[in-house]
């Protein structure tokens, strides 16, 4: 359960990253946070093998990513882009079926069909089949994108702002789905309430460096967090007995 699945060693990237070290264990649910331009997307892209680091190395299960076959790698890791621009004429079912590409494609085997079924159900997109991507609302589209990643049945999900465009209800549902998946999930999320309920571990990035990495409470109450975001974190008790973090801007 606590195996290291993904490791980054001294990653550097000419824009964005300056010496990032990171170890991710299996089944962890990690939130990557940081202000805009901190280098979150860059880091995620490097972890997903989309960008090659200028220096440093990514290891998947102790194998250097450089030395892995891309075909093997993509069976293990799915990545969701922050701003995607697929052709608007793509049919939803064709699009999510792309997730089967690393395996056999077009999807035929039982396993493939199950993966598709699972993703469609969890992302609640059965109503969208047969439509074109260009005809969907923002949240619907985002769910379709996410479904594509789930169809890929990866061991590790690297998601760049997966809850973008989603309303709060959908957000919660989708993140619960992610939480319940028996795989490793790394998400970039800007919604700290959501993070506090669903993610165990939070990594705070600033100016291309990891400046804090730990369990949710530690990070949110750390000086680094409060400085970077210029926020003060409070904790309150809700009627139903749970707790909730509240963030107050220094200024406003």
């Amino acid at each position, binding site marked *: 359960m606590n195996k290291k699945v993904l490791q980054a060693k001294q990653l550097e990237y000419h824009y964005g990253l300056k010496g990032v070290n990171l170890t991710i264990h299996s089944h962890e649910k990690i939130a990557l946070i940081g202000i805009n331009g901190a280098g979150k997307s860059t880091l995620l892209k490097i972890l*997903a093998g989309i960008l090659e680091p200028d220096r440093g190395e990514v290891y998947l299960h102790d194998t250097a990513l450089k030395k892995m076959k891309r075909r093997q790698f*993509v069976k293990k890791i799915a*990545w969701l*882009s922050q701003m*995607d621009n*697929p052709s608007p004429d793509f*049919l939803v079912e*064709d699009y999510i079926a792309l997730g089967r590409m690393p395996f056999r494609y077009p999807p035929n085997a039982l396993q493939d069909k199950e993966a598709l079924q699972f993703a469609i159900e969890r992302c609640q997109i059965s109503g969208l089949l047969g439509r074109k991507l260009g005809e969907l609302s923002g949240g619907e589209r985002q769910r379709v994108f996410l479904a594509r990643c789930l169809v890929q049945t990866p061991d590790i999900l690297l998601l760049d702002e997966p809850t973008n465009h989603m309303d709060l209800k959908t957000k919660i549902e989708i993140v619960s789905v992610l939480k319940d998946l028996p795989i490793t999930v790394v998400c970039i999320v800007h919604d700290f309430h959501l993070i506090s309920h669903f993610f165990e571990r939070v990594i705070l990035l600033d100016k291309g460096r990891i400046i804090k990495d730990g369990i949710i409470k530690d990070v949110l109450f750390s000086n680094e967090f409060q400085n970077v975001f210029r926020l003060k974190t409070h904790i309150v008790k809700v009627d139903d007995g749970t707790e909730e973090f509240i963030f107050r801007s220094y200024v406003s």
Partner: protein
Amino acid sequence: MKFIILLGMSFLLVGGAEFTIGTAHLSCQQTIHGFLAGPYSHDIIARIIWLFRIPRFFLAFLAGVGLAASGSLLQGVTRNSLADPFLFGLSSGAAAGAVAMIVFANDILGIWTTQLGAICGSLCSTGAFFLLAFYRRNVLSSDRIILSGLSVSFIFSTITNFFIFYGDRNTAQSVLFWTIGSFSSAQWSNIPIALLATGIIILYGIKNNNQIVAMLAGKETAFSLGVNVQYLYVTTLCVTSFSCALLVSLCGPIGFVGLIVPHLVRLFYVRSFRKLFLYSSFAGGILTTVADIISKIIIPSQEVPVGIIISAIGSVFLMLMLLKGKGHNSAS
């Protein structure tokens, strides 16, 4: 399955028509008789049918399939609906080679002269294209592909035009005719080449169509799905260049098929990108063979170059589609 039956039936139908119809008028009976006499008979009708019409049918079909398939692959891979094998300089290269042969070479290589010229030309242009696209950088983008293609295309058409200018008084016409395209040079010895060209592109397409569809989801996303984007660019360009070079050398640069047929198929019927490739290929084959039949009957005792008919039929079709309002209004 339905697809295969449809394919088989149209194939037979069109084939039958191709055998019966030609610039020399043969009755149905004569055709059947000639057909049965076999290729080695000294009967002139049998020879016409076996040595001209049958290979011609295959050449027309194969060329149509190959060109349409290339067009659909290239449009997918560059995400540009105006991409086609001929905009990327390939046909200009082939034309330059063929024209050079027409103008300069004293037929040193027999009937293969223009063919060889065309192939050499397209090798040159493809080489130049890859040099431009790759020189000193390891990342290809569709913009760069397009620009490299354009510059190669223009440099070779410059060369062609210069040859024409330089050539004798028949050159202009020979060149123009060659450029319009025709299947009349079909011979059995050509068929293996056409089969090779089309076979390669179809096999490549069947194998990689999915990856090309994935490219439509965005370059990075495709990469994250295991598509080796750079490799796909290169192989697609190589394969389409190679196949089209061979086909162009056999029947001239028939530009319409690769550019329009995929659009036609998309407007007409196919909503799913995944099916576009096979349907386009097939539609391309049918279009060229039907056009070839028409080219033989439209003017008595004379053959209209098939390129003319192909683009006539195709563009009328496209116009009808557009007028019928099946046009897809994607946010562009």
